[in-house]
């Protein structure tokens, strides 16, 4: 039996085979969507760029060469020009991908996990636990995200670590809501009752039987959220509250290039293009994933 037949069989013999088959079907849906594939390509390129930065970059991102300051794109071996301190903008963007991925990666792991725990606990236990946890979630949702992050960073001090903390603190509530909604739909299912009758405790049921059911919607939400995280991080950087110079963070670079906008347009424009392309990539992939994994929003 070939791999294709093994994946697409109607009668899977093991749980592993069934799961692989499902993944394969979702993947085929996704591949058929050219925009989602474009998004995936952008993200793969970003990851490669960050991983291979020393080889992809042409210059050192930090070292200043004042005689080469504010060179236009293409001049003197600088494909995207140089900034006000003579640093190669292309190389800074390449290294900046590491900072962006670092921020997005940490937020995308911590916030959903926290939201998942809060949401499943609220949905599974119900009653006052639900009321308290969901009220807490609503309070955090009642704040505009960027402003709350601003206030946090203002209190904690500027820097990448604090920016990550602030973004994660403001990013978890939507996950809690999604997880709670999913939990409510499976809470009274027979298989949960069966697990309970076999003596499984609440922790075991939530971790082993409820959370896996929430994963697909949470993953879609994470992908769609990535763009928002990138934009918030860049916004904090732009305001001078994220990564500090000389770190090549994209938002910080735009903020620095702002002073030279009218005469040296490339300094602010290029890092902005990088932010735009990357968050577009995440948005395209997230949209495609939602269509592939969530039958409710698939085109009818």
């Amino acid at each position, binding site marked *: 039996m070939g791999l294709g037949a093994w994946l697409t069989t109607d009668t899977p013999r093991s749980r592993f085979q069934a799961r692989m088959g499902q993944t394969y079907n979702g993947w085929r849906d996704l591949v058929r969507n050219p925009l989602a594939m474009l998004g995936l390509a952008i993200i793969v390129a970003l990851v490669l760029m960050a991983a291979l930065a020393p080889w992809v970059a042409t210059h050192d991102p930090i070292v200043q060469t004042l005689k080469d300051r504010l060179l236009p794109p293409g001049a003197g071996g600088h494909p995207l020009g140089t900034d006000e301190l003579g640093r190669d903008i292309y190389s800074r963007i390449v290294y900046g991908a590491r900072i962006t991925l670092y921020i997005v990666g940490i937020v995308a792991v911590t916030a959903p996990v926290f939201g998942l725990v809060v949401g499943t606990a609220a949905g599974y236990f119900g009653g006052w636990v639900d009321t308290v946890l969901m009220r807490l979630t609503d309070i955090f949702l*009642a704040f*505009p995200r960027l402003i709350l992050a601003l206030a946090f960073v203002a*209190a904690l001090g500027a820097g990448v670590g604090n920016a990550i903390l602030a973004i994660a603190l403001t990013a978890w509530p939507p996950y809690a809501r999604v997880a709670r909604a999913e939990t409510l739909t499976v809470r009274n299912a027979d298989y949960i009752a069966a697990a309970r009758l076999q003596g499984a405790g609440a922790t075991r049921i939530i971790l082993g039987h409820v959370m896996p059911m929430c994963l697909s919607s949470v993953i879609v939400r994470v992908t769609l*959220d990535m*763009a928002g995280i990138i*934009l918030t991080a860049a916004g904090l950087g732009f305001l001078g509250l994220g990564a500090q110079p000389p770190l090549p963070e994209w938002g910080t670079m735009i903020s620095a290039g702002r002073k030279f*906008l009218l005469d040296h347009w490339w300094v602010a*424009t290029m890092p902005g293009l990088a932010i735009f392309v990357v968050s577009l990539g995440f948005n395209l992939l997230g949209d495609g994933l939602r269509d592939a994994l969530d039958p409710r929003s698939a*085109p009818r």
Partner: protein
Amino acid sequence: MRAAAEEKARTGEAPPAEALHRGGPGGGFVLPAVRGVAAGRVIGFAKGLGGTAVSLAVTFLGLLLITFVIGRVIPIDPVLAIIGERATAAQYDAARASLGLDRPLYVQFGLYVWDVLRGDFGTSLLTARPVAEDVARVFPATLELATVATLIGVALGVPAGVVAAVHQGRWQDQTIRFLGLLGYSMPVFWLGLIGLLVFYGKLGWIGGPGRLDTSYEFVYDLDVPARTGAILLDSALAGAWDIFRNALSHIVLPASVLGYYSLAYISRMTRSFMLEQLSQDYVTTARVKGVPERRVVWVHALGNVLVPLITVVALSYAYLLEGSVLTETVFAWPGLGLYITNALFSADMAAVLGGTVVVGLVFIGLNLLSDLLYRLVDPRAR
């Protein structure tokens, strides 16, 4: 940002329904069935209001708790900031007591809530004026910007959403969807900078940063009575059309940049609401009756979409307040966002937290407003 907004929009119907259940049996049970309809509607509405009011109060307290905690974790000692480093221990303790910092935390929090309820947000270090006064002065500018942006978003977003739904899956739909995704993906401050570069720097079509040209600012301050604080409205009311034109040339770019975001969100939501309506039986009935397709789409279906759209528009309005922080920084627009960021750089925590509370309040208020409108307009939500 978008995720949270969609989440709220999707679950927008839930809170009123829950609130009604908690309020016990609706008014219809109490009153005789004959006149129960109208009266029951009013009572059910009032009970829903009661539930909403309680949850609002809790949210409000939680919001204050967050800003309170933020205000307490700052590494700046508020006492030292006032008396300086050379004060004696006795002076330090006296100043600490006068600020109420020697009391238990819950008492401090109670005092803080009481201050905020009286409209006292403390004094700004930067302007040496009460924060509440400062906020009242800068807020109209933000409101004006957000309103014009929302108008742009609604005027373009609703038709775009309808067109996308009618042509579902075809190139019109794909184009609108892609344009929306572009909007979601662009950093708002970057789009603003590029706009300034092209339309102000290169083409000279629009006014630059700020709300007015400097020459007009004096005329505005002297000649135009500040009725609303919104320059467009005030100058129109006073008949000062040259100021109006100048203000328009300044607001058009920042409002368009912000409006693009609300356009992306509104068109997406309109599309999904329209798809839902277009698959309903009454649409088929209308078509079978021979109602022209244009009327079916733009009158029958869109009429029913307007109700859930209220929530969406209110939410996008609230999120524009957030976007305004970055936009105002780029366009030197003297609103609440610029006030908060300026305060941030001078470690003026009273102003930062006061501004944050006000934005949170407006956020809650807009949610409440959309909730109320929704319940008034849609009989099923009562």
